[in-house]
């Protein structure tokens, strides 16, 4: 038996998640139903995709505050264009547009960070305001309530459909596939490519990364472009799920997403973090939020619980690391 101190962060986190799920199930059997799990998975999609982007930035030793603004921007502009074009609309085209727009905005961050070598926190704090302000000031503040029919059909598209004994039909939203795809791509990138290992190297020792010939600025362009692209993807999926596009959505949730990544073992000092850990972190937060509703905890108290979980788990992992 290995001593607990040497267990991987992901293992500990998984144990906590399982214990939590068992506990909630004992109090409220409604938790362990297929319908609830489908709901939980669907609720993890947007936060999950955003957290994967944040994970990459955190590993590289940076921090990004602007990704929710990018997501909102890409979401709203894509929906606005799709609606203006009229007709059926195309989800694939919308996704390409949103991802492209997100990537473009991410590259603006990269120009300041990789090109001018400005601190990532300050740059993204600034661009977050610029992107969101620009959206509200020049593009629109009104909620787009009627999305193209193709979007609406997509939002209803489910796998594993089945009819429960009560006559209710449940299924798993197809948007979960977007999270799976994003997780696989980010996971392969981080673990199996030289670029991914260079991102870890950059987070571990930026000066040394430069010295062994890693083109730091180029890597940073890729990182922030990718984060922007993932944010665009998350944004559009959010709109599809909500069946409307609200330019004030998403912005303000960036700390939750950061918290999920940090909960999953990503270090805010760079160089550490994994896709598995991040997904567990997201899952933990989603389960916690959802089950508190099931347990009848008032919504203000939910924030207290989630906040406390983040502080406690980070403290535990910090202690484990120092010992």
């Amino acid at each position: 038996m290995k001593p607990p101190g040497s267990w991987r962060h992901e293992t500990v986190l998984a144990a906590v998640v399982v214990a939590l799920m068992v506990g909630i199930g004992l109090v409220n059997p409604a938790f362990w139903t297929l319908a609830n799990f489908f709901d939980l998975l669907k609720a993890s999609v947007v936060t999950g995709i955003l957290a994967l982007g944040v994970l990459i930035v955190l590993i590289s030793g940076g921090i990004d505050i602007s990704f929710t603004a990018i997501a909102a921007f890409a979401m709203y502009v894509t929906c606005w264009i799709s609606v203006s074009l009229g007709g059926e609309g195309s989800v694939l085209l919308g996704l390409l547009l949103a991802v492209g727009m997100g990537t473009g905005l991410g590259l603006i961050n990269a120009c300041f960070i990789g090109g001018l070598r400005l601190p990532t926190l300050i740059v993204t704090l600034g661009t977050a305001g610029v992107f969101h302000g620009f959206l509200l000031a020049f593009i629109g503040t009104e909620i787009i309530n009627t999305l193209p029919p193709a979007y609406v059909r997509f939002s209803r598209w489910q796998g594993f459909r089945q009819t429960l004994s009560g006559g209710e039909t449940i299924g798993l939203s197809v948007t979960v596939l977007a999270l799976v795809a994003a997780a696989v791509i980010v996971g392969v990138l981080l673990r199996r490519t030289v670029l991914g290992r260079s991102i870890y190297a950059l987070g571990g020792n930026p000066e040394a990364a430069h010295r062994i010939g890693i083109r730091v600025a180029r890597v940073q362009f890729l990182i922030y472009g990718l984060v922007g692209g993932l944010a665009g993807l998350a944004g559009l999926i959010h709109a599809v799920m909500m069946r409307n596009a609200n330019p004030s959505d998403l912005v303000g949730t960036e700390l939750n997403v950061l918290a999920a990544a940090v909960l999953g073992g990503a270090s805010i000092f760079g160089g550490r973090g994994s896709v598995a850990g991040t997904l567990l972190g997201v899952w933990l937060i989603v389960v916690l939020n959802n089950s508190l509703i099931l347990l009848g905890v008032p919504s203000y108290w939910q924030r207290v619980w989630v906040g406390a979980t983040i502080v406690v788990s980070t403290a535990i992992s910090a202690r484990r690391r120092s010992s």
Partner: protein
Amino acid sequence: MAAGLESPSIPVPEGASPGTPFAALHGLSKRFGGVQALDDVSLQLRAGEIRCLAGENGCGKSTLIKLLSGVLRPDAGRIEIDGDSHERLRPIQAIRLGIQVIYQDFALFPNLSVAENLTLPGLVEQRRFWVNRRSLRPAAAEALANLGVELPLDTTVGGLPVAGQQLVAIARALRQRARLLVLDEPTTALTHKEVEVLLGVLRRLREAGVAILFVSHKTREVLDLADSVSVLRNGRLVAGGAGSDFTPGSLAEALTGRSVGGLSPSPRADLQESDRAGPRIEVSDFSVPGGCSGIHLQVRAGEIVGLAGLLGAGRTALVQGLFGLNPQARGRVRVDGREVTPDSPEAAIGAGLAYVPEDRLSEGLFLNQSIERNIVVSTLRSLRGRWRMLKPAGVRSAAEAGVRQTGVRTQTVTQPVSTLSGGNQQKVLLARWLATGARVLILNRPTAGVDIGAREEIHARLRAFAADGLAILLISDELPELASLSHRVLVMHRGRVAVELEGNAVEEGNLALELDGLA
């Protein structure tokens, strides 16, 4: 860690036949603002030759290395590699040409495994896209075997001791088909035994036809190792020649530009009989979990007691425990007969202890703050006047007194500590602790990274402080320093005092013997 040094096979780099010039620097100059960091420096580096670049801190050594590795571009001059002239090298180009620098911080990735640290640079250089991390292990193992060292491949580098990290850095450089290996002050953080291992590795690399530029200000190592020597002072080459052309004295003189009064250490001050009364500090059955255990020691007023040992022998753990930096420390500590419980630095300072830590930059000094603030920070309480406000005049005069007492070379006490040389920074730290009225001064490697001139001066000050009645406990890896300063030396091993040397037995040869016996 360095077992089996006998018969490793070091891959001979292509095109390396001993004696052929690999690189030549022609008239390199570099200016930073108002400072001429490097002024018209030319030198040659040959395959199979160890050239030592000797110079004190701030002489331009680092600038020269950065020009050679392409990190900086020269204002004037050019670098010739294999006969091709370059006005400026880019880092990746320098690597491709076979120039590898082992920086003082090793430029490793603490969060990655040993195997990845060894192999990632090659993958980056070859512009590879995919990486199979398992397949990296054999290549990494081979790189270490070539050096004749064994290290765990899957451990993250941040978890290795300093000497292990350095070997990883060297193994990595060789994997990159290094034809010129530049080592920047490679022995600063190593113990005697580890230095010997390193010098052995370098000699074998020389046999294999690698050109080596060994940057150091330690005359002993330079003379021990060098085929040829270049001495840099204030950015200019002031002396050069074959290693055998220099004596310790002539090299030291070239380094400092003044006669250092021979290298023979000044004799220890004899302890006065009257000082032998009672111990200033008496430690009994002192233990720090995971650090040291069952330590008994006493230091009398006026006495300097050296602590020798290998890295990880528990010396730092012991003194940190005494200074209240480890709440798990247990044992009895008496200062001037009074029982003290060092459970915090505040309590230790109150009891008359002072501790000058090993890493003055990160643990000791507030680099961006003024000399004045750095000196008075430990005595702010006593400098308060009416309304408990600080009196600027009192602060100033206290700081100036400290500067005078320790001989900090500076115009004003208001300039930031970061503008001082390493030796003068160390004196600022000493001044801070003397201001507390300490009776026991604990020093951890006080002259690491300090040049010869300043070192002699610090030694003289320490002797004077002891003569004034201070008890001094000194951790050092520099055997000459221990031998010339200490009245007694305790050799620690695995957390315990293994040997105690006293009187005439405190001598370099004996210390080296004792330390080698432990490994």
